[in-house]
């Protein structure tokens, strides 16, 4: 192989050889469906990556643009008959783009600041959200957005209401099981989840404990590094993963339950990122839906009389090949009718911070998703990833869909704890 | 008759036995003599070369069963017959593929393949129909409902071009995308691009069971609905409607349905037709009668139009034509209506105009096209019997110009007067 040296390009090149150029990935790709351009398709992107690796084209603006126009949804991996590891190739390419300094400007600087400086630091994140909550309470956010330029105003619509303090309270380090003990698992709280989806985290540990599992929540855990890796900040992402690997190793749990598809997929990459040091973490991480489906739900479950559409988060269905488990769980809730909608495995357009960096494409992709959901007209939309939850919630509201957007584990919690059954986490707090 | 030197030259080129001076005919009033009847494909090519050298144009004939189809010939002097090119020279009973020469009567092919468990998917009107003629005219009968169009059974063709070159296209295999699909170009071209020497055909398996039913409703609308519903049954191979104006004790409306296929499907569809449409078993000759009617004209010398529209518009087409006094034969499942008009006397252009007005109206209602399949020569004057080719005419002219620059083959007869 001639061309660009460096172990990343060698790896990218090797992986690109898996592609036989059949094109079966094209229709699974949201950006290809929107643009019809070969270069904005998985096959086209693999060809570009190979082109750079072989020295046929330079690593320049066009490649950098495409590397980031891609949503990273990995639906192409599911469609690919040859097993091309597109997600891995994309990450490596973005790292190369970063190292080559091809993404510059205030937007990227802000992104760096936010990801490295805030997201990775739980206390700073908490501070930021406290401020945001205050601003929202004082209606300052409305004022600020009204005065802001349109672009910022649009971004602002994505911002959810920061939940009440009570929901953002830190979970205890250990929650004992209810009834007969079935095992012991770790729980990954995430970075944004405790701030915006604290209730979902509480629901998760409550459902686990109610099912007889002791839940261990190490204090020193931190951000999984997914957004950093997706942003080409390889070193930082790997450092975050290393820390989590150490923290959970110390906690002495063989399995770590995750309720965020994006985080789960990233942590399962730990072996690829860190080698032997990441193997235990990668092997131990399991999505809450897969875990509960495997272990079996304890009865009884209360009734929820509603029609629900389950929408697959990309990093669960494509990134982890989990699509059956969440559906099987929902089907066990009496009264809940799981209804199909068109193309549940296609991306909602959130894709980490993509909905901030590539607003137009994100909205176009979201529009397809919303139209499919509108056609099914469910009472509930369930999906297991915070980014997707935010995207679908704001999108559904703007599109006038009446459905409530929830995490599947929230529904399980409602089924267990609605009629006076007490929550395990509350007993401790 | 052609000039004597030309006659002599042809006799020399083909051999005297193949130049039949005593055989001549008139097509649309144009006298054509002699009849050239080459003994084989090589001789056919030789004949074409000779015609080219002598600048003599010809009308091509197979079995002569539909010589009246087309505009009157312009500048043709003689008849070129493929009747001697007969024979089925290959039949693969394990695959359902056969090869026959152009002059082979369809009946002969049918007779040969049937014992092997196969059927020829071509059933045009005209007992003397030959393979070459049927394909050149893309002729079909009521069984087109189940068989599809004639072009769909052609796997390969051997064609002699106007310059005498012998060519092949397609092949003997059922799936073939090797180069351009000239099979489709030649089929239905009325011999104006080349003369078919022989064809590879895809046969259909002989059905385990065949049922022939008929319905005799007293209203046209009911007949049309019935025929359409029957056509939509899975085992329907034909579903045709005949509407006769003259009440000579004959029922005005008859629907004939042929079901063919496996036992269970035919039984089920027959039972359905009986209970839902009031169908009863039809006499064995019922479908042949439909076929004859499709190929005839009232009083033997009248007009026959073919209107090709959409199935859902069959009723609209039929109603408007019935009201104008036409004899009707329709295949509603295919959206096809054949309308026959008797002509009161010799040379009555007004009657022809009136018939055109009715049929044009029906064609418009049906969303389709109009062809005057059969008419006396005087009735064809001033009109292209095939209708207006519109945007496709320049392309058609180019094709004709390249395939037959000297205009030797059926000149003036085809759509666009090509």
């Amino acid at each position, binding site marked *: 192989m001639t061309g660009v040296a460096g172990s990343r390009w060698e790896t990218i090149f090797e992986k690109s050889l898996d592609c036989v150029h059949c094109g079966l990935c094209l229709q699974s790709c949201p950006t290809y469906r929107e643009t*019809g351009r070969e270069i904005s398709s998985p096959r086209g992107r693999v060809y570009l990556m190979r082109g750079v690796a072989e020295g046929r084209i330079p690593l320049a603006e066009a490649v950098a643009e495409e590397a980031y126009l891609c949503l990273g949804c990995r639906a192409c991996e599911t469609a690919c*008959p040859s097993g091309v590891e597109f997600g891995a190739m994309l990450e490596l390419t973005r790292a190369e783009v970063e190292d080559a300094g091809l993404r510059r400007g205030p937007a990227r600087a802000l992104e760096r600041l936010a990801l490295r400086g805030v997201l990775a630091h739980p206390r700073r994140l908490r501070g930021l959200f406290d401020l945001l909550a205050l601003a929202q309470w004082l209606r300052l956010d409305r004022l600020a957005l009204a005065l802001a330029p349109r672009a910022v105003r649009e971004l602002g619509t994505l911002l959810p209401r920061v939940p009440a303090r009570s929901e953002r309270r830190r979970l205890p380090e250990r929650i004992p099981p209810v009834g007969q003990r079935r095992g012991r698992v770790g729980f990954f709280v995430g970075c944004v989840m405790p701030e915006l989806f604290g209730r979902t985290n509480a629901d998760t540990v409550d459902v686990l404990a109610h099912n007889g599992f002791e839940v261990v929540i190490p204090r020193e855990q931190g951000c999984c590094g997914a957004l950093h890796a997706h942003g080409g900040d390889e070193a930082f992402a790997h450092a975050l993963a290393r820390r989590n690997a150490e923290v959970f190793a110390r906690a002495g749990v063989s399995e770590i339950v995750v309720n965020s598809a994006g985080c789960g997929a990233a942590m399962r990459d730990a072996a690829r990122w860190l080698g032997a040091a990441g193997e235990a973490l990668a092997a131990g991480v399991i999505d809450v839906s897969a875990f509960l489906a495997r272990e079996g739900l304890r009865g009884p479950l209360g009734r929820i009389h509603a029609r629900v559409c389950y929408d697959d988060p990309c990093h669960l269905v494509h990134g982890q090949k989990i699509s059956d488990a969440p559906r099987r769980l929902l089907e066990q809730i009496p009264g809940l009718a799981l209804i199909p909608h068109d193309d549940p495995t296609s991306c909602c357009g959130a894709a980490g911070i993509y909905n901030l960096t590539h607003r137009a494409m994100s909205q176009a992709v979201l529009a397809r998703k919303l139209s499919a959901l509108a056609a099914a007209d469910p009472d509930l939309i369930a999906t297991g990833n915070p980014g997707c939850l935010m995207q679908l919630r704001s999108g559904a509201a703007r599109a006038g869909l009446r459905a409530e957007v929830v995490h599947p584990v929230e529904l399980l919690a409602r089924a267990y704890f609605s009629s006076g059954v007490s929550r395990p986490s509350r007993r401790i707090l | 008759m052609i000039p004597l030197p030309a006659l002599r030259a042809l006799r020399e080129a083909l051999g005297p036995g193949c130049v039949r001076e005593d055989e001549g005919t008139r097509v649309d009033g144009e006298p054509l003599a002699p009849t050239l009847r080459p003994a084989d494909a090589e001789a056919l090519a030789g004949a074409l070369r000779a015609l080219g050298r002598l600048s003599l144009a010809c009308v091509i004939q197979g079995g002569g069963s539909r010589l009246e189809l087309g505009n009157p010939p312009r500048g043709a002097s003689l008849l070129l017959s493929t009747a001697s090119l007969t024979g089925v020279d290959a039949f693969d009973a394990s695959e359902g593929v056969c090869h026959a020469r152009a002059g082979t009567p369809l009946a002969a092919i049918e007779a040969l393949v049937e014992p092997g468990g196969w059927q020829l998917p071509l059933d045009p009107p005209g007992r003397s129909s030959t393979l070459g003629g049927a394909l050149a005219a893309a002729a079909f009968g009521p069984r087109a409902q189940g068989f599809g169009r004639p072009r769909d059974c052609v796997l390969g063709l051997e064609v002699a071009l106007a310059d005498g070159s012998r060519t092949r296209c397609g092949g003997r*295999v059922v*799936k073939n*995308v*090797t180069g351009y699909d*000239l099979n489709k170009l030649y089929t239905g071209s009325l011999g104006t691009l080349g003369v078919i020497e022989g064809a590879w055909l895809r046969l259909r398996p002989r059905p385990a069971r065949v049922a022939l039913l008929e319905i005799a409703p007293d209203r046209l609308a009911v007949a049309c609905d019935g025929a359409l519903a029957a056509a939509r049954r899975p085992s329907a191979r034909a579903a045709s409607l005949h509407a006769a104006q003259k009440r000579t004790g004959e029922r005005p409306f008859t629907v004939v349905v042929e079901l063919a296929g496996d036992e269970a499907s035919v039984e089920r569809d027959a039972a359905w037709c009986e209970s839902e449409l009031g169908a009863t078993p039809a006499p064995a000759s019922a479908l042949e009668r439909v076929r004859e009617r499709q190929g005839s004209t009232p009083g033997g010398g009248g007009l026959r139009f073919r209107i090709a529209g959409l199935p859902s518009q069959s009723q609209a087409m039929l109603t408007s034509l019935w009201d104008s006094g036409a004899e009707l034969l329709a295949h509603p499942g295919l959206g*096809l209506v054949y309308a026959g008009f008797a002509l009161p006397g010799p040379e009555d252009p007004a009657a022809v105009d009136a018939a055109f007005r009715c049929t044009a109206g029906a064609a418009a209602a049906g969303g389709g096209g109009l062809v005057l399949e059969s008419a006396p020569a005087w009735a064809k004057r001033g009109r292209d019997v095939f209708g207006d080719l519109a945007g496709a005419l320049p392309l058609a002219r*180019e094709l004709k110009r390249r395939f037959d620059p000297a205009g030797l083959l059926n000149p003036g007869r085809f759509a666009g007067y090509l």
Partner: protein
Amino acid sequence: MSGLVERLRGIVGADACLVRPEELLVYECDGLTLHRAQPTAVVLPRARDQVCRVVRACREFGVPFVPRGAGTGLSGGAVAQRGGVVIECSRMDRIIGLYPMDRYAVVEPGVVNAELSKAAAPHGLFYAPDPSSQLVCTIGGNVAENAGGPHTLKYGTTTQHVLGLELVLPDAEVVQLGSRSGFGSGYDLVGAVVGSEGTLGIVTQVTVRLEPIPERVETLLAIFPDVVSACRAVGGVIEAGLVPAALEIVDQRTIAAVEASVYAAGLPLDAGAVLLVEVDGPECALPAQVLRIREIAAASGASRVEVARDAAERQRFWRARKGAFGAMGRLAPDLYVHDAVVPRARLPEVLASILAIGDRHGLRLSNVFHAGDGNLHPNISFDRRDPDELARVLAAGSEILEVCVAAGGVITGEHGIGSEKRDFMGLVFGEADLDAMKRLRASFDPDGVCNPEKIFPSTRFCAESNPKARGYERVPFEP
């Protein structure tokens, strides 16, 4: 050239006119990576009018143009061999109308094959020609190649399902061909354009025939000790007068590859061949057919015959067949999917010859085929960066075609001639035959500007010689 680009931008808009080297690189080939040439520009029109104006602009600037669908073709048909403008039709993707009562639809060329069937499904109809790339390939591309698929045995190929076309001719005039009824006047120009590989003009609208979805489908999987017995069973089924919807065979080498991959379907590794039979139609008719097929399979030597009990099992059976491509694709960086047709009765002997050819050239070769119509797909896993292996792959391909033609077959049943098999046309057709085809082509495209260098033998090679091994041709980009 910059004048042309200006003009093109004016017609389709800057975002629909691709000229950057990286953007053009990805259009240098289609599904067959061995034939490559970069275009001068790529445009993505949204409407017929834009296509006309693009063609007119190309004529004025004297550059050729090449229509392209999803670029999944396997004969290099969408490669801009002489540069020029690739007209990518993916944005013309509307289903203009669906008419269930008369069972037809009008679509733009960029409509994806499977999407059409999906749209027709609520009306109890489907679009029958189903190439294995149907999830991504477009109707326009299907028209160009007269695409087939496993179900063509019963339902026919694309040409049986195209009733009308709107075509932008190479001189930028628009012509409407055919009719919704399927019975028109004049030459069958629709039939001539289907399968013309994009050389007669750019299709901008297609009227297609839809078929009723069969009442019921039954799928059988039969295991045979060898290919000969599997083919015998196929022959028996056809001679019994049955018309299955699909008859597919995978050979032992394919089974080994599939079972070693993620597509493993639980097939026994010692199976010589696996036959997949699908019958469809009225519910009442199928039990007898299934029984008959079982009898025939057993009589032909099947060690096991299974009937799918539900949709999931049916999918599992098909996975064994559809996984072949992916499984073979994983064995090496490149995969060559050949495509030849022989009379069905000659399949076993031709197959044996093909395996021998593969062995003789030291290649990883396996076979998958549409047994019902004698259409073979020998698959060869290789690495095109190894010039010796590439040469052996091409030599083997050439020998395979010769064997098939000698057995009474032809050189392509589905993939078309494209760039790939131009120089093999002489195996099937003589000079006079090709001349007749050239007359057709010249009638539409007298100046040879619409997808040139396809179908007819290249002037660089004489028809009898084998083409030299071709690595990819690096065409320098000129702005």
